[in-house]
């Protein structure tokens, strides 16, 4: 066996240039396939590991998907704001156990700022575990202007406890958008939990309001009047009462509100995304098939230049079947080299782009071992390469038989 691998390598080395190109083209197409797999998986888990424990998300009457995407995943544009008077109405519904307000719209270096209450840390769960602080504590109430950072934000900017930071209005792009006169002190840093909370900055609703109504220094951005909210997260006494509570909220006359079940809305969203997901997969499978056919074609062509080599092998006593075997072995080696190279490419890509993916799309992508899906994909590529290499292999078998020592066209 070792002998055969050695021979195949030696033979391949004598045709370095053309083989190198084949290896690279294989590597690039396998990279595309693996990247498609990875993007699909990572997007899925990013949407999968959202918050749990919230029974209903309440907002103004609008698109449920938009409300969920904005309030839970901080993606997309904000829906209209709910006046603070709604809190009383909602809390008067007997099955409602707790209510956590969510205010959005500000940012810190393009990471979203959430205005909420300390209940957020008690009630919201991530992957079925309560939120935990890696250091520090929850923000204090009143006008203390304290923040709690998500794990990624703290890591990204190397922030420590009691550092002072300045938040920006809106997305923070453009001049004079900073709330410079109200610096915030970091009171706590959360443990990483793989949810959008990792990428957020949490402040109290009082701080959020004072940023916008100008009660703290000059009037900066008065667009948000006192206590308006983007959404409310609700928890119920009994989860099975969710339909009843939803109907009661939906039928509130003033303000007209909408209650969305996060699980149902997310599943609907995912059903829509599946089309795009499958299209992406189909394209990458096409790319890999093309590449494997390319390998077969290249091997077929290179046979012409290998007539002498093969004839010589026959002379020294190599059987035709062994020549077939060596051709197949060569193509497998090429594809294996391509796959290894592709894996290195992919890890490099993930390493370079993970921060950007996190910031721009909220997708958590990490360097890691191949998943079961990856391995199945790679195995399929190897099998396809094996089948494809049988064609040039059989041709070589025939050539070896026919040509013997007298290649006709030399």
């Amino acid at each position, binding site marked *: 066996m070792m002998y055969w691998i050695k021979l195949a390598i030696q033979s391949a080395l004598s045709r370095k240039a053309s083989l190198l190109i084949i290896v690279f083209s294989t590597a690039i197409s396998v990279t595309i396939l693996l990247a498609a797999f990875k993007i699909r998986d990572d997007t899925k888990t990013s949407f999968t590991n*959202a*918050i749990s424990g919230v029974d209903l998300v309440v907002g103004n009457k609008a698109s449920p998907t938009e409300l969920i995407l904005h309030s*839970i995943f901080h993606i997309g544009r904000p829906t209209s704001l709910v006046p603070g008077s709604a809190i009383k109405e909602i809390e008067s519904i007997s099955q409602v156990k707790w209510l956590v307000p969510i205010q959005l719209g500000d940012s810190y270096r393009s990471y979203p700022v959430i205005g909420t209450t300390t209940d957020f840390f008690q009630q919201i769960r991530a992957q*079925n575990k309560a939120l935990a602080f890696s250091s520090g504590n929850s923000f204090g109430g009143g006008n203390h202007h304290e923040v709690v950072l998500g794990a990624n934000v703290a890591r990204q900017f190397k922030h420590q406890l009691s550092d002072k930071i300045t938040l920006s209005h809106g997305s923070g792009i453009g001049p004079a958008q900073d709330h410079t006169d109200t610096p915030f002190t970091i009171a706590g840093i959360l443990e990483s939990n793989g949810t959008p909370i990792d990428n957020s900055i949490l402040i109290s609703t009082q701080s959020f309001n004072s940023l916008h109504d100008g009660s703290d220094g000059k009037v900066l951005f008065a667009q948000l009047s006192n206590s308006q909210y983007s959404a409310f997260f609700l928890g119920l006494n009994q989860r099975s009462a*969710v339909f*009843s509570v939803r109907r009661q909220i939906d039928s509130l006359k003033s303000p007209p509100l909408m209650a969305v*079940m996060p*699980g*149902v809305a997310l599943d609907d969203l995912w059903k829509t995304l599946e089309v795009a997901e499958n299209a992406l997969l189909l394209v990458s499978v096409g790319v890999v098939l093309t590449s494997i056919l390319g390998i077969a074609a290249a091997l077929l062509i290179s046979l012409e230049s290998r007539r002498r080599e093969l004839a010589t092998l026959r002379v020294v006593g190599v059987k035709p079947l062994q020549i077939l075997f060596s051709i197949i072995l060569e193509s497998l080696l090429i594809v294996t080299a391509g796959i290894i190279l592709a894996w290195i490419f992919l890890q490099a890509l993930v390493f370079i782009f993970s921060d950007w993916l996190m910031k721009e799309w909220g997708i958590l992508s990490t360097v890691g071992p191949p998943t079961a899906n990856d391995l199945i994909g790679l195995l399929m590529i190897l099998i396809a390469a094996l089948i494809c290499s049988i064609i040039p292999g059989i041709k070589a078998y025939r050539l070896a038989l026919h040509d013997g020592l007298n290649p006709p066209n030399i």
Partner: protein
Amino acid sequence: MKKLLLITFSFLALMLPIPPSHAQTHKEIFWDDLIPPEWARQTAKEFAKFFQKTGSMQDSDPRIDDLYDKLRKHWDAAPISKKYIGKPIRISGYVVPLDAERSLSREFLLVPYFGACIHTPSPPANQIILVVPPATGGLKVRSMDAVWVDGILSESRVDTDMGRSAYKLEAIKIAPFK
């Protein structure tokens, strides 16, 4: 030789289909079994007089809305039947997911008909079961999947002024409906 035979036979014995241990113990029940019969009789009697009148009404009639509201309140306060509480049961239904996460451990509601609570009026309170997946992980379920759930039916009580009981099913096994 004897030894070989012995090994072969013991392997054969292992390969015999083993009856699933829960199949006998979990009694298959139907959604109607979850409705207390007295409540059903009383509801029918109470609302029968209304329904006689509604025959001549238009859909847009405000009295229809009133009646619907009344029926809803009645349904939301529907009591549970104690018959199967604490007993191992097996029931099929449709999934309404609760949390915005898609793990194996996410809790969901089991309802008796497709589209329930999303496009159509939600069922009475005693036709909704909160399913808690087993700790080792259940089935990856999605909105409106049809599933079989095996588990112990229990009563979840909340002590508030409007406190009423609801069904909760501690699942042992969740399987796709076939």
